[in-house]
């Protein structure tokens, strides 16, 4: 496998050729880069010495561990990763009879389908072919959506830095992997609780351990399938829920869930203009129809009024004519009567 850093700008164009050869993506399962690396944390071997914490600080050039490594008080509270501690070991169960205390190491899980990368509006993350998820601070605007999105609470932010804050997280010691070395924590672990290797090999190793010691392990490898799988794999002797790892998670990659709605967006852009112009035309037409109706009813009212007026006029004329006739008749009658009187 060639260990070259993949370009992260122009991903859309660069992947066009690959897309041309692939079948349609809707029902496709993506296996991830073949032969990529991962780490296996066997919590049944972990004794909580925190050598990994110290080594992580050293190889990443971070201030050394604040609490002394041999101070058991540090386990009284559950800690999380911060911008200066990229990995921490917590004690989840105290010693109980035969069983030793149970510890688990926290750090970025380097998801097969990273949701930090999916939600980044600046495309500041990449999933390298070697396995590590890398963050490029030179592209980051500091929205912290990645910190909010991570289901493993693994990302931290430099809130103290006023002008150039960065997201801080485990890099799986990408540079050391390129040099052919192991990540700092795996090299430092005195108990062999952290195994570095190709992910597919690690899954085989983990299965083999479960097969050989069925009483020692829960029959599950956390990270094999959860949310599409992670590069870090965890073996446990107690139910994973007791290690603050959620049980029964879907195997669907979280990025698929997170982006499922975005498919609607191009539909809104392309359907709305036609739909809304239709509604606009509808309201315009309703307006025109009601205007025409108004005109028509006005016309009808006018016509009716006209008719009434005509009738009134006609009857008035009629009456006038009758009155005239009556007056004439009266005058004639009167004249006749006077003539008669004169004739007598």
């Amino acid at each position: 496998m060639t260990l070259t850093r993949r370009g992260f700008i122009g991903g859309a164009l660069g992947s066009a050729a690959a897309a041309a050869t692939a079948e349609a993506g809707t029902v496709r399962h993506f296996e991830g880069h073949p032969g990529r690396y991962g780490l296996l944390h066997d919590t049944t071997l972990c004794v909580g010495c925190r050598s990994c914490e110290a080594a992580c600080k050293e190889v990443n050039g971070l201030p050394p561990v604040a609490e002394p490594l041999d101070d058991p008080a540090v386990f009284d509270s559950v800690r999380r990763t911060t911008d200066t501690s990229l990995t921490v070991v917590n004690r989840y169960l105290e010693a109980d009879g035969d069983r030793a205390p149970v510890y688990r190491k926290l750090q970025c899980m380097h998801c097969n389908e990273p949701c930090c990368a999916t939600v980044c509006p600046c495309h500041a993350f990449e999933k390298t072919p070697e396995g590590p998820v890398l963050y490029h601070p030179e592209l980051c605007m500091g929205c912290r959506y990645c910190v909010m999105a991570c289901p493993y609470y693994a990302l931290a932010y430099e809130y103290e830095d006023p002008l150039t804050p960065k997201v801080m997280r485990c890099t799986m010691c990408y540079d050391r992997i390129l040099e052919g070395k192991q990540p700092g924590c795996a090299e430092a672990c005195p108990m062999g609780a952290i195994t570095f290797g190709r992910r597919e090999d690690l899954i085989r190793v983990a299965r083999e351990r479960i097969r050989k010691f069925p009483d020692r392990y829960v029959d599950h490898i956390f990270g094999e399938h959860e949310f599409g799988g992670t590069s870090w794999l965890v073996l446990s002797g107690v139910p994973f829920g007791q290690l603050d790892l959620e049980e029964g998670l879907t195997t669907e990659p979280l990025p698929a869930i997170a982006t499922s709605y975005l498919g609607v967006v191009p539909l809104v852009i392309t359907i709305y203009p036609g739909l809304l112009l239709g509604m606009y035309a509808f309201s315009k037409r309703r307006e025109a129809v009601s205007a025409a109706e108004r005109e028509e009813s006005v016309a009808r009212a006018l016509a009716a009024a006209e008719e009434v007026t005509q009738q009134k006029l006609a009857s008035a004329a009629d009456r006038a004519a009758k009155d005239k006739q009556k007056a004439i008749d009266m005058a004639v009658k009167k004249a006749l009567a006077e003539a008669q009187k004169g004739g007598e």
Partner: protein
Amino acid sequence: MTDVTMDAASPTIWGRSGLLTPFNVIAGIILAGGAAILGIRFTQGLAATTNLSHTYPWGLWIGFDVMSGVALAAGGFVTSSAVYLFGMKEYKPIVRAALLTGFLGYFLVVLGLLADLGRPWRLPYPFIKSAGPTSPLFEVALCVALYLTVLFIESTPAVFEWLGLKWWRKLVGSMTIALTILGLILSTMHQSTLGAMYMVAPTRLHPLWYSSHIPVHFFVSAVAAGLAMVIVEGMISHRAFHHQVQISQDRFASINFGLAKGAAVTLGVYFAIKMVGLATEDEWQLLATGWGAWFLVELLGFVLLPCLLFTVAYRERRLTLARVAAVITVIGIMLNRFNITFVAFNWNLPAGQSYVPSWMEIWVTVAFITFAVVVFRWIANRMPIMYEHPDWKGVH
């Protein structure tokens, strides 16, 4: 508020009583304090000013300024679509104020983002340097940038009428329908995608608030919030600028009853789809938990109650009741966005890690709102916002 009225009566630069009105003094103190806190934020970092943590990367500035601000500014697209696309001409007297409120609301969103982002000067990076099209936030950023421009253009007719630039006024008037359609497209997209931003957190956001329908919940509640906000804004501005208002009290009241009717139906739909969400994801049994009680407070007290109040207010023509319902709705939307952003977020982490905003975060938020109010007042005192310019009566 009495002082604002006096200013409205004499639209000189500083108002009748000069620079030192009580309104100006209080606003000045709030703004100066906000500027000082932002000074601390950009010299000593977010840690010195906010209670944000690695577990709660988003706090009040996102939960209020962005999430609530965008929802409450929805009145702009709702009223302009009603008037220009659906032919409801009777609402025309309130469109300008709603659009201006919308523009200032989105301006506030950008201000909030500039304070909250780690490196705010990189805000244009998604468009000029490195695009992340898989991110719901990329979609929101794209839409907000475009919609802010649309709202700005939609608000310019008042400026052109004020300055007497007839050619420009005619030009923007001719773009009314296109801009309204574009505004409705962009609003539908980003109002819903703001909800879709939380679809990435099915384990971190409490299942009662998390839903595969959350984009629809956000869109519908934003329409209700927009309508309620138009009523609230009218309640304040018609008192403050009553000298400018040309329409009669009766006509203004009947506009408000129309808005109340719309809000009643929208809140009813919102209540219904929230119930559908419970059924779809089979979360009925969660209602019996402590989180369920809090969820019911939000759903019954701040969705169903205002829905019923709006219904009664519309049936019985009670303006005050409609205004009470509008205020409850506005508070309810903020409560919902707060619940989703930081109250019901990380619900399964041990108690004692929860986020409570610092006084400086609250102060800066109040300062941003004050800034928007001051700008609204400055514009409404000068430009034809609350009334129609005599030269442009009845024109788009």
